[in-house]
């Protein structure tokens, strides 16, 4: 190639300007201190181990719909759903007149090392469902990401306990061609990894997630800080997101091992071979109305991994809601502001499982 002639003086001026803006952004970030997250009022109504079931206080006239129980993932903390007052799925659901519960798995310590997948799904999640049903009679189960996989497994095992099911950015078929994490996972010796680490460090998972797009996530996004040097609100939003991304609990070792081997390596959920407590998880038994929300640019859970649910689920009332954005962006983008309303509309339009006939 012929080396193009570049204007060195222009570059130098640009680099100097960039450094000054980056410095201003750094100073503003330092002044901002710690940002608040998860501020919507709530009460703990049930707890076991590190897990807590919260009930949020109502913010609007009841819509007359069954409550929504949100099952979050073990990876990262659930305040992504309530990141800030004007970007809060939970607040939006409350404002739509829904009663909202959240299962927060907490931050596992070494004592959780031997908690199994079944302990989470047929143990804690089941007891939280029972708690909500004891108060309200029926519920909508909303699972997020890995929590969606848990919710699906639970709904397949206990279909009578779940009136409606919403899955959000939930992996179902882990072996679709776009799933880079699954390709990497296939060669990893998870028996040895968990035997050595015990609980699997959240930092290790973060490193894996970052290495899916190392240049964009490791450098490019931080350059955007300089672009927002004079916008404290944008910097505060950036900080909130940054806090959530790296506030990563360790994963209970046994659950991690089972999940990675069963789902990522053997694709057992889609294959119908996943077993919990000796019971086979058959997605054909998921006969209640299902809404599957996925992100069109999701690099962690590719749309194909979520949309596989359409061909596996037994429900006659299956619907999809694609959202522009990535795995996280769907909660905080401008499009996300409509999401609570869309969910409430779907819930209002769909009969619960009790009024839904099984697929012939």
């Amino acid at each position, binding site marked *: 190639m012929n080396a193009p002639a570049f204007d060195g003086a222009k570059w130098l001026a640009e680099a100097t300007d960039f450094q000054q803006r980056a410095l201003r952004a750094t100073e503003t970030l330092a002044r901002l201190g710690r940002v608040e997250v998860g501020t919507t009022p709530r009460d703990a109504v049930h707890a076991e181990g590190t897990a807590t079931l919260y009930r949020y206080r109502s913010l609007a006239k009841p819509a007359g719909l069954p409550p929504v129980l949100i099952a979050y993932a073990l990876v990262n903390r659930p305040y992504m759903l309530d990141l800030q007052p004007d970007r809060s799925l939970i607040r939006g659901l409350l404002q739509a007149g829904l009663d909202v519960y959240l299962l927060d798995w907490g931050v596992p310590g070494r004592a959780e090392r*031997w908690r199994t997948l079944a302990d989470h799904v047929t143990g804690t999640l089941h007891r939280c469902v029972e708690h909500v049903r004891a108060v309200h009679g029926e519920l909508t189960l909303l699972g997020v990401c890995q929590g969606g996989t848990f919710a699906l497994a639970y709904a397949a095992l206990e279909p009578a306990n779940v009136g409606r099911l919403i899955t959000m950015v939930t992996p179902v078929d882990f072996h679709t061609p776009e799933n880079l994490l699954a390709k990497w996972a296939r060669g990893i010796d998870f028996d040895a990894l968990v035997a050595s680490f015990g609980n699997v460090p959240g930092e290790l998972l973060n*490193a894996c997630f970052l290495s899916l797009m190392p240049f964009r996530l*490791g*450098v490019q996004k931080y350059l955007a800080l300089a672009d927002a040097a004079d916008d404290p609100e944008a910097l505060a939003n950036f900080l909130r997101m940054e806090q959530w991304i790296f506030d990563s609990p360790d994963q209970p070792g046994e659950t991690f091992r089972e999940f990675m081997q069963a789902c990522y390596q053997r694709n057992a959920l889609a294959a119908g071979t996943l077993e919990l407590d000796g019971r086979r998880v058959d997605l054909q038994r998921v006969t209640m109305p299902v809404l599957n929300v996925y992100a069109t640019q999701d690099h962690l859970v590719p749309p194909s991994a979520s949309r596989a649910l359409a061909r596996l689920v037994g429900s006659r009332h299956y619907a999809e809601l694609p959202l522009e954005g990535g795995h996280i962006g769907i909660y905080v983008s401008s499009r996300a502001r409509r999401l609570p309303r869309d969910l409430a509309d779907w819930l209002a339009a769909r009969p619960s499982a009790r009024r839904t006939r099984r697929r012939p």
Partner: protein
Amino acid sequence: MSAGPFDAFSPGGAAAEAYVRFARALAEALAPSAGGGAATLEALRRFGAAQFGAAQVGTAEFGAAPFAFWAAPLPGAAGLADAAAAFARGAGATPAGGAAAGAPPLGPNREHQLKWQAWLAAAQACAAAAQEFALVLGEIGATAGERYATRLAEPDATSAPLRVLFDDWIECAESAYQAAAHGERFCAAHARYANALVAWRAAQQAIADDAARAFGVPTRTEVDELQRTVRELQRELASRRDASAPTAATTRKPRASAPRRRRRAPT
């Protein structure tokens, strides 16, 4: 290398420094003294390979540092070969003294020697796997450099702002990376590296357990077993409670709405 006005421990500061270094490295690669033509292309290939290859030892500037985490709980991966070589020479850095890799395990220290030899073998396997993975990353970097050279040959490149050229570099690097990361070669090298690090870590843990035992400190293995027993008892207790608890159907108290907002909320 100075962190300049930025906090070297914050990714934001590191990214800013990386940006400035990017400008410098690019200017060097494109300088007339680089020779132009094939020489400039080669300079850009080296430029790309350096960014990826550095990931292996955690010094990457352009985002590949996440790979270094696999080695984070261990002594620096860069020192692996040195440590293994020191042990093999019997440099006295270990309790096994002069027990090199192939020495027969004899005498009262036999069991310890076996564990140190296992550690050495794991360290050597780890160094080899790290080297293989670095090679793969370096090749991706060279490909990224080639893609970037193509981009820079476009007519608008000379007038483009530095930031645009930087974003173009990220695009070239990421696309080259994505093309390779889905491939069998990358996946296999990545898995071998990760598994080798875990095996080396396990070998270290076996030695650490010995040390703990010598001082009467509960070992990790013993604590693990206790926790497993506690977990089984918890599971049994929960199962009995579930069996004796009334079901939701018998305890239901329908209530349509949540309590109204009270004074202040725990979050």
